[in-house]
Structure formats: structure tokens, C-alpha cells
């Protein structure tokens, strides 16, 4: 029986590796380069013992804790600094990699009918899932070991082998949990979109849970319930808590077992959650391209809007802690005072940075609204639309229009969410909604520039569109680390957000605002013109 359910598992395994022979190494190397290259930068932050201590105090800032994770240890070392600033984000990246890896070989294959083809061969029921499990486990093991080796090998003071092993293992552990989670959702949802939405939604919820929990107090239990929060509590380079890694692996194992049970019990092609019946006639709104695309995108947009709302609220809720942090910390007061900064201007600077990060997140749904045309074309559905009385111009301009609407929506939600949470936390309207609104509107042209770039690349050649995501990750890195590092100005300016005034820390400037808007219009026009001239795939 066992040999029946696992028949041809080895061949399936080799098949997955063959399919992913580029995809998987690119992700692994990408994650590792990001993790390893950043460590090099840390000794540059603080050259003397004193600077290091000040930096340690900065890391206790509630805004930093909410964004990255809790400060820990008896004294600050580069290892602890690195963990606090990098672990959560790298873990998110590894988590996303695992979700994509698992879903592309489970629910997507099943939805597109490939699993049926494989299962009609003498291949066991559980072979695909087992092969996938082996690939995912091996990938996470590679990430854990190579990260540990890479971190230790750089010989940075305070980054020892024991700590690096825990750091790497925590990363791999989070990866495994997300692999398990994606496997489970692949059984529950009957579409790839659904499984993807559940998995990435879980990632966001786990991030927010640990942001709330890491602020301390009774809420800290939330951090233990989130794999991201749990990973942070392995405290590498201090406690080196291997129990946390064991707990992560145990959770992953439980998720995998549950997936297996569901997978052998359910029908091929179906999900555990039932399919709902639809309407027999279309509603009034479903009458053209914009109606169709709006309908296709509404849940995605709603999910991201909720994410942006919670993210803004999460950041907004730390402003109260930040004020007391400033008032109770003479060292920070001295440091800030020397440069002429008081608690208010520090707050303005933090608002500027945090809202830029929220805007970076909001770029994702905006670009998705443009690039969904690429998916429509790839799946042969755009042909169905364009063979009717529908023009290519309307297809692309309509999608850009939806992106424009979504950009405004996201920024409004971000402003209101942050303001509301800040006001609730501080007990009075300390900052004013106008500050948040102007901050978010100031970022709008940068969001739109990404939409314009997506449109231009799609119009020229659909295969170029991943470059938009490269620019987004680059921009995020510049915002997140650029301030700490001596990055040359031109490198900063490649990120659209850096071109704008850092409102409210600086005065609002009209020139870059209008400039980026023009860039958006020009790029969109390029996209439309090129799209009209090329063949559909």
C-alpha cells in the first residue's frame, strides 16, 4: 500500500527540480545575497563603542520595534543589531518563496489540469506532495546552512557560529511553516488565486500579530502565536534558543500531516471548501472591460486595502510610545538635541519614513491592476475580449485607470488608518489628519510612476514586466537602509520615492511631484502606443 501511494515519487521529484532549475536557484541565491550582503554594512553604522551603544538605544524605539522586532540582550552587538533589523524581513521573503514554490507545484498544476495528466500515469496519490515536501525541506535546509555559514564567514565582530546557526535555522523554520501553510491552503481552496490570497494574507496577519505583540505587555502572547514573532524569540547571538526552531519545525510538521490527510481524502481537482453557485445572468455592471477587470480585481484590492489599513494602524499606534520613549531617554534627547531636533520633529521624520514604507506596500496592488492584463493575455482571455467591439487602447487605459483609482484608495486608507490609530493611542488629535493626508498624497505620483512603468513594459514586451518588481524591492531597500548607509545620491534617486520631498519632515515641493506625474503620463502613453503595434500572444 505504501509503495502504491508513493509510486514514482523519485521521478516526480526530479521532474520538479527540472522545471525549477532556474527559478529555485534564483530565489535561493537572491535570498542569500540579500541576507549576507547587508551584514557587511553594519560595522559602518557604528565605528566606536559609544556609537554602538547609542545605536542600541535607537533600536529600542517603539517605531523600530513595531517595524522589525524587539530589542534584546544585555548589551548591543552587531549580531543582535543585525538580527533585530533583518530577521523579520528576510523571513517574510523566505516565506513568500516557499508559498510560491508550493503553490506552483500543487494547486496551480491541479487547476490547469496537469496533475490529472500525471495522476493518470502509474504515479502514487501522495507522490507529488511528497516530492514537493522533499524539495521544500531541502531548500529551507540550504537556506539555513548557507546563511549560517555566510554570516560566520564574514568575520564581523559579535557574529559567531553558534548564533549564526540559530539565525539560519530560524529562517529555515519560518520557511518550512509557510511551506506547510501553503500546502494546507492548496487543499482547502479550489483555485490558485484563493490559495495564494490565504497564504499571503496569513503572512500579513502574522506580521501584524508580532508587531502588536512585540510592543510588550499582555499582547506579547500574539508574538508567540506568530511564526515570525516566534522566530525573533530564538534571540540569536544572545540566548541561542533552539527550542524555538524545534517549535517551528513541529508546527510545519503538523501542517504537512493535515495537508496529507486532506489530500488523500478529497477529489482530484476539487477543494475542501465547496464551490458556490453563480448567477444565471450578468449584473448591470458587468458590461465591458472596466466592469470585468474591476470584478476580477475587487477581492485582491479589498485584501490589500485591509492590509494597508492595518499596517498604517500598526505604525500609528506606536506614536504614543515614541513620545514617552523620547521623554524618558536622556541619551536620545542629547543626541537629537545636538542636531536641533525635538520630539515633534523626530515624530515628523518617523511619519515620513513609515508612510513611505506603507506606500511601498500599496505599490503592489496598484501595479497588479496594470499587470493583470498580462495574465489575461497569457491565458488567452484578452483575445476573447479584443475580438469584440473593444479596443486595445481601452484595455490598457482602462487598467491604468483602475490602478489610478486603487492608488488613491490605498493612500486614503493609509492616511486615515494611521491617523485614527495615532489619535486613539495618544488620546488626543496630536498630529492632525491633514499631515497624514498630505504625506500620502505626496507619495501618490511615485505609486503612479510604478503603474506607468508597468504599462510601458507591458506594451513593449510582456516578458519585461518583472523589472517593475525589481525596482520596487530596490526602492524599499533604499528607504529602509539608505538612511543608515552612505549611499550616493544618484543611487537613492533611482527609487521614485526618494525624488519626492520628505514631507512632513521637509516642506512639500511641487516640482518633483509634478515631474513624477508627468513621468507617469509619458510612460503610460509609451505603453499604449507600443501595445497597439504588437501581436497578441
Amino acid at each position, binding site marked *: 500500500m505504501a509503495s502504491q501511494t508513493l509510486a514514482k515519487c523519485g521521478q516526480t521529484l526530479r521532474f520538479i527540480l527540472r522545471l525549477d532549475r532556474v527559478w529555485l536557484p534564483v530565489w535561493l541565491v537572491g535570498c542569500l545575497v540579500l541576507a549576507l550582503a547587508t551584514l557587511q554594512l553594519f560595522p559602518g553604522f557604528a565605528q566606536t563603542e559609544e556609537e554602538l551603544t547609542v545605536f542600541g538605544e535607537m533600536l529600542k524605539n517603539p517605531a523600530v520595534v513595531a517595524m522589525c522586532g524587539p530589542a534584546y540582550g544585555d548589551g548591543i552587538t552587531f549580531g543582535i543589531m543585525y538580527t533585530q533589523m533583518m530577521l523579520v524581513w528576510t523571513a517574510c521573503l523566505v516565506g513568500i518563496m516557499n508559498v510560491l514554490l508550493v503553490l506552483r507545484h500543487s494547486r496551480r498544476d491541479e487547476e490547469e489540469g496537469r496533475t490529472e495528466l500525471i495522476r493518470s500515469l502509474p504515479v502514487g496519490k501522495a507522490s507529488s506532495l511528497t516530492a514537493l515536501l522533499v524539495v521544500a525541506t531541502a531548500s529551507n535546509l540550504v537556506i539555513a546552512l548557507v546563511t549560517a555559514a555566510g554570516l560566520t564567514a564574514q568575520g564581523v565582530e559579535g557574529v559567531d557560529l553558534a548564533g549564526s546557526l540559530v539565525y539560519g535555522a530560524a529562517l529555515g523554520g519560518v520557511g518550512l511553516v509557510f511551506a506547510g501553510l501553503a500546502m494546507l491552503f492548496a487543499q482547502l481552496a479550489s483555485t490558485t488565486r484563493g490559495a495564494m490570497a490565504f497564504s499571503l494574507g496569513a503572512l500579513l496577519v502574522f506580521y501584524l500579530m508580532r508587531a502588536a505583540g512585540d510592543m510588550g505587555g499582555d499582547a506579547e502572547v500574539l508574538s508567540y502565536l506568530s511564526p515570525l514573532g516566534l522566530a525573533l524569540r530564538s534571540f540569536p547571538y544572545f540566548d541561542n534558543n533552539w527550542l524555538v526552531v524545534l517549535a517551528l519545525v513541529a508546527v510545519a510538521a503538523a501542517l504537512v500531516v493535515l495537508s496529507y490527510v486532506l489530500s488523500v481524502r478529497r477529489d482530484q481537482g476539487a477543494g475542501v471548501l465547496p464551490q458556490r453557485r453563480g448567477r444565471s445572468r*450578468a449584473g448591470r455592471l*458587468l458590461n465591458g472591460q472596466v466592469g470585468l477587470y474591476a470584478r476580477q480585481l475587487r477581492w485582491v484590492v479589498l485584501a490589500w486595502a485591509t492590509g494597508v489599513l492595518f499596517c498604517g494602524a500598526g505604525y500609528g499606534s506606536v506614536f504614543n510610545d515614541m513620545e514617552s520613549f523620547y521623554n524618558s531617554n536622556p541619551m536620545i534627547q542629547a543626541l537629537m538635541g545636538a542636531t536641533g531636533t525635538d520630539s515633534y520633529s523626530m515624530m515628523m521624520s518617523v511619519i515620513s519614513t513609515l508612510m513611505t514604507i506603507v506606500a511601498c506596500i500599496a505599490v503592489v496592488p496598484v501595479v497588479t491592476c496594470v499587470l493583470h492584463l498580462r495574465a489575461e493575455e497569457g491565458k488567452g482571455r484578452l483575445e476573447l475580449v479584443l475580438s469584440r467591439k473593444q479596443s486595445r487602447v481601452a484595455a490598457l487605459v482602462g487598467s491604468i485607470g483602475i490602478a489610478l483609482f486603487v492608488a488613491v484608495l490605498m493612500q486614503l486608507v493609509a492616511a486615515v488608518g494611521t491617523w485614527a490609530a495615532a489619535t486613539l493611542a495618544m488620546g488626543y488629535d496630536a498630529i492632525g489628519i491633514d499631515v497624514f493626508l498630505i504625506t500620502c498624497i505626496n507619495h501618490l505620483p511615485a505609486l503612479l510612476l510604478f503603474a506607468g512603468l508597468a504599462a510601458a513594459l507591458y506594451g513593449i514586451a510582456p516578458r519585461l514586466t518583472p523589472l517593475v518588481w525589481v525596482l520596487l524591492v530596490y526602492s524599499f531597500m533604499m528607504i529602509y537602509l539608505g538612511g543608515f548607509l552612505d549611499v550616493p545620491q544618484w543611487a537613492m534617486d533611482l527609487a521614485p520615492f526618494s525624488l519626492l520631498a520628505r514631507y512632513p519632515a521637509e516642506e512639500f515641493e511641487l516640482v518633483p511631484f509634478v515631474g513624477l506625474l508627468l513621468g507617469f503620463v509619458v510612460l503610460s502613453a509609451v505603453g499604449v502606443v507600443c501595445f497597439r503595434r504588437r501581436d497578441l500572444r
Partner: protein
Amino acid sequence: MSVITTKGLTKRFGKVEALRGIDLTVEQGEVYGFIGPNGAGKSTTIRVLLGILRASGGTAHVFGRDCWHDAVGIHERIAYVPGEMNVWQNLSGGEMIDLLVRMRGGSDRGYHDELVERFDFDPTKKCGSYSKGNKQKIALIAAFSSDADLFVLDEPTSGLDPLMELVFKDCVQKVKAAGKTVFLSSHILSEVEQLCTRISVIKEGCIVDSGTLQEMRHLTRNSVTVTTRTDPATVLDGLQALVGVHAAKVLNGQIFFHMDNNATASVMGYLTSQGVEYLTSTPPTLEELFIQHYNQ
């Protein structure tokens, strides 16, 4: 006025020449068959006619307008059924039919409910869960409930069961009776034989033959079975000496052979002189024409 005209139409994908000079003329009110095996260029031709692909050379006009530049205006009068139906998984079948009809811009002829019933289609299920044949019905119902002037059907019956094929044929007859034009691409020859007035055969990106089924048969051979009073072996020798007789053989006392149409008079004269007892002559089926073209 011709509804579809192409002259020397070519299409290259990189180095591959998918179409190598297609000349087509489809007149108002006819049902035009476009036949050829997989990969011959049928769908590529249709995609150029729809302005989805841009021709590399030659011209393509529908309703006298350029297929690429006036695509949107042309589509207002076209109903298109693709060979492979790609659906929006999360729409119901009914929603997708309405969407397709509305996006064409023309009016619904009010046949929607009748067609849904005749095609035995459940419009409340999500599109993702339909079988291949049911997905095809979405496109067919959307097409035949519209008041288009030209129906472009790319292998429309793939996946349909025989009963549904009958409904389909009936729909085509109806639009033909209403004076509409139908461009039917297919490799199911019986379907083309029953429905089409004129036919083009495409092979490796070239039109190798076109005309009415009658005209095409004239160019070809009939199969003849005959029994005579005279000894079959003698008749066989006599037949083989005649021009226009091919593959003659004797089996169980019957003589079988193929005969060029223009040799009919001389062959019949000879057979009569040998005392014909029984004779059948069948025109070639489209299948045989097709196989004849493709074995060349």
C-alpha cells in the same frame, strides 16, 4: 460585395513562416469552409482577420475595411467562436455569456433563453468547473444570440457531443437562411460537407485548393464497382489499357477501379460493350479529397 478578402497574406513568427500568401474571397451570404490539419495556419489566419495578429505582408479586409486598423469597427459586426475557449474561472456561465454579448456592442436577438435550453446548458455554475464541451457552449450561445453579419467559427464543435453538434448545425442553417455569412474552420469534414457552399483547403500556410464541393469533385476521381457478363480478367486488361483508369483490381468476381471524371464517356462505352450487369459510381468524400491533398 465580398465579406472577407485577403491577398497574398503572409505571417512570420521570427523565422517560421506560418502563412505563405493566403488568397481568400468570401461572399455575402455563403457558408465558407476552411479546412486543414492541425498547425496548417487556420487559427493564425483567423487571428489576422480579427486584428489580434498583424500581417507581415499582403492585405486582409473584412467588410472592405482593413483588419488591423479598423479592428474594433469590424468586430461590431462579427461573432467569433474560438477553437479553445478560455474562461474567467470566477464568473458563472450565464454571466460570461452576457458579458461576451455586451462587449460586442451589438444587440441581443432575444434568443438567449431558447439557446440556453437547446444547448442544455446550466448557466449558474462557475466557468472553471465546466467541461470542454460546456465551455464551448458559452461561446456558441454568445455568438448565435447576437445579430452579427459575419460568424467566424474556429473549430466550433470540438468537445460537443453528437446531439449538440446537431443543434449547432441547425443554428448555422438558421443564420444562413437569414442571409448572414459564416466562415467555418474545421477538420471535421462531414460537418463542412453538410454545411458549406464553398471550401478552401490550407496546407503548410498555403491554400492548395478551393472552390465548391462540386468543382473540387470534378477535379478528382470517382470510385466504380462493376460486374460484367464478360470474364472479369479480360475486362480488367481492357480497362487498364484506357486513359484515366487507376488502381483497377478484381475481387470476388467484381471489378473495382478509380476513374478520372473526364474519362467517364470512354470508360462507359467500353463497359457497355462488355455487357454491364451491375454498376455503382460514388463521388469521393471530402475525406478522400483531403487525404489525396495531404499525401501529395
